[in-house]
């Protein structure tokens, strides 16, 4: 019991006192210690007289002060230097974390969790990239954005232009436009409006506006598109090489037609006609004769309706 109390009291001795006591016990002067350690006498005195102040004011860099204390204690045979709190203050924070940390070895669960997390992330990135690419490459998206922006403009701005169009052709168009239940696809608004509105006259406008109020509706779905087919008839008076495409790019006729042959075609207007001998063929668009003077011996390229 008395030994324990004695030990406890010894532990409470400040480090500077312990060093001084050790030096005196070894019968060494300050000069002797300074000489042995190659230090200035003032350093030894600082350590022995005011170690706390020296530590607090950082009068010497920690690494050096710690080294001086180690060398001093070794010189006088003080073994338990690390037990003094003043010395511990000089140790770096990393010293407190004793021992070498082992490399982290993952458990099976951690590995699976990481894998699934990365796979999920990659899937998400792939999805985002896919959607972006699809949106960029899809022709509908570009038309939709352009069409939606110009849909209203087309209707409002083109109406005055249409007023001066041909009366005969417009009547036909109006009949079709005026049919109940005709739907104009939003996506095709630009192209269909260009073809139909060019031929609409004032009367037609009234009819169109009246029918559009009742039955024309603009939808987003491309599936509801109704393409209006029109007829084209060619009567050949002589041999004529002929090639005809409709608006969708479909080739309706191709080849050499002879005298007396008649060609009846139906397709989406406008039709692109290429006639090798145009004077040898009478062209009827919607059963009406297309009148245009062609030069003999010259190929004719033209569009119907013009």
């Amino acid at each position, binding site marked *: 019991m008395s030994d324990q109390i004695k030990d406890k009291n010894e532990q409470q001795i400040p480090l500077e006192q312990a060093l001084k006591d050790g030096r005196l016990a070894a019968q060494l002067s300050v000069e002797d210690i300074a000489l042995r*350690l*190659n*230090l*200035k006498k003032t350093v030894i005195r600082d350590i022995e007289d005011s170690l706390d102040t020296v530590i607090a004011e950082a009068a*010497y*860099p*920690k*690494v*050096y002060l*710690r*080294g*001086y204390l*180690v*060398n001093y204690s070794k010189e006088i045979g003080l073994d338990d230097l690390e037990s003094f709190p003043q010395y511990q203050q000089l*140790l*770096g924070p*990393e*010293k407190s*974390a004793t021992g*070498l*940390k*082992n*490399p*982290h070895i*993952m458990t099976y669960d*951690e*590995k699976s969790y*990481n*894998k699934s997390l*990365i796979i999920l992330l990659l899937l998400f990135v792939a999805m985002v990239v896919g959607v972006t690419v699809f949106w960029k490459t899809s022709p509908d998206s570009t038309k939709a954005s352009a069409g939606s922006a110009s849909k209203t403009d087309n209707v409002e701005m083109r109406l005055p232009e249409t007023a001066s169009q041909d009366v005969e052709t417009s009547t036909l168009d109006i009949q079709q436009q005026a049919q109940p239940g005709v739907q104009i696809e939003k996506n095709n608004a630009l192209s269909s409006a260009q073809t139909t509105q060019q031929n609409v006259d004032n009367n037609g406008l009234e009819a169109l506006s009246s029918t559009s109020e009742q039955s024309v509706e603009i939808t987003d779905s491309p599936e509801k598109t109704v393409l209006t087919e029109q007829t084209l008839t060619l009567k050949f008076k002589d041999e004529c090489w002929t090639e005809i495409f409709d608006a969708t790019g479909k080739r309706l006729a191709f080849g050499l037609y002879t005298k007396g042959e008649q060609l009846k075609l139906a397709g989406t207007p406008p039709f692109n006609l290429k006639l090798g001998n145009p004077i040898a063929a009478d062209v009827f668009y919607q059963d009406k004769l297309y009148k245009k003077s062609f030069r003999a011996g010259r190929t004719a390229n033209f569009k119907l309706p013009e």
Partner: protein
Amino acid sequence: MFKMFRGMFSNDLSIDLGTANTLIYVKDQGIVLDEPSVVAIRMDKNGKRVAAVGTAAKLMLGKTPGNIQAIRPMKDGVIADFYITEKMLQHFIKQVHNNSFMRPSPRVLVCVPCGSTQVERRAIRESAMGAGARDVFLIDEPMAAAIGAGMPVSEAKGSMVVDIGGGTTEVAVISLNGIVYSASVRIGGDKFDEAIINYVRRNYGCTIGEITAERIKHTIAIAYPIDDIKEIEVRGVNVAEGVPRSFTLNSNEILEALQEPLSGIVSAVMAALEKTPPELAADIAEQGMVLTGGGALLCELDRLLSEESGIPVIVADDPLTCVARGGGMALEMIDTHGGDVFNGD
């Protein structure tokens, strides 16, 4: 691009690629790897492949069958075998990363001897890149050691550090984050082992292996005469008889054996002090020099240097890890201070 993505799952590393040991420091985690720089290579029909790395490989040193070769790819602080070094680094980098799914691609700071040539530095850089590093920074070992030891390198005051590694001893005087003087001598722990092996062969007529020599060094070696003499019993093969023999060595014998490498280190330190500008030399004389590296643990080496130079000599706290820790601290400074403390290479 993909390397950057992998980099998001990797830790920045500071690697002390030493001749004897490789240490890796990870930010916020400290030293996470301390393994011998040894690789065991197995040679079979399909060519060479790595059999073991680090401690496992070191255990094989001198005890391998014909088809396995235990190699130390670093010699004198620089790469002696490029391919093996790359494999070793690759193994260590992978070992310190949690992510086993994706190959890590960290930013790596490698500590290099200040006396290494441009070719040797390039070899280290290429080796680290080959091991999967995203970016490679090089820092001089004495600078890293000084930072790791806690020396005031940024102050306008001379600080002298002596880093005694496995292959080289680096002496440097640092001030204002820069190296004012540095020297590197190819003397280190390996030379101590070699000196012990030679001494035993010369005086006892026996050969001992590197592992035994290293054990002797750790147990009884001293650099300055002391009263407390230690002894160790070792076994070696008698050269004349060709049979194993047992004999006892003491500290004084090892001190005698180590005279040559020790005098080399003392000479390097004295040369550094001579060549240091007077103002900085005065600072060093007042506050002393700091010893780091595994060689600093050689008993009474600080006293030897103190007696020879007449200035205080301090052994750094945890000298073995100073370089790796200092490299880690320097790595953390990249974003804040730029590459001020780094080597420009």
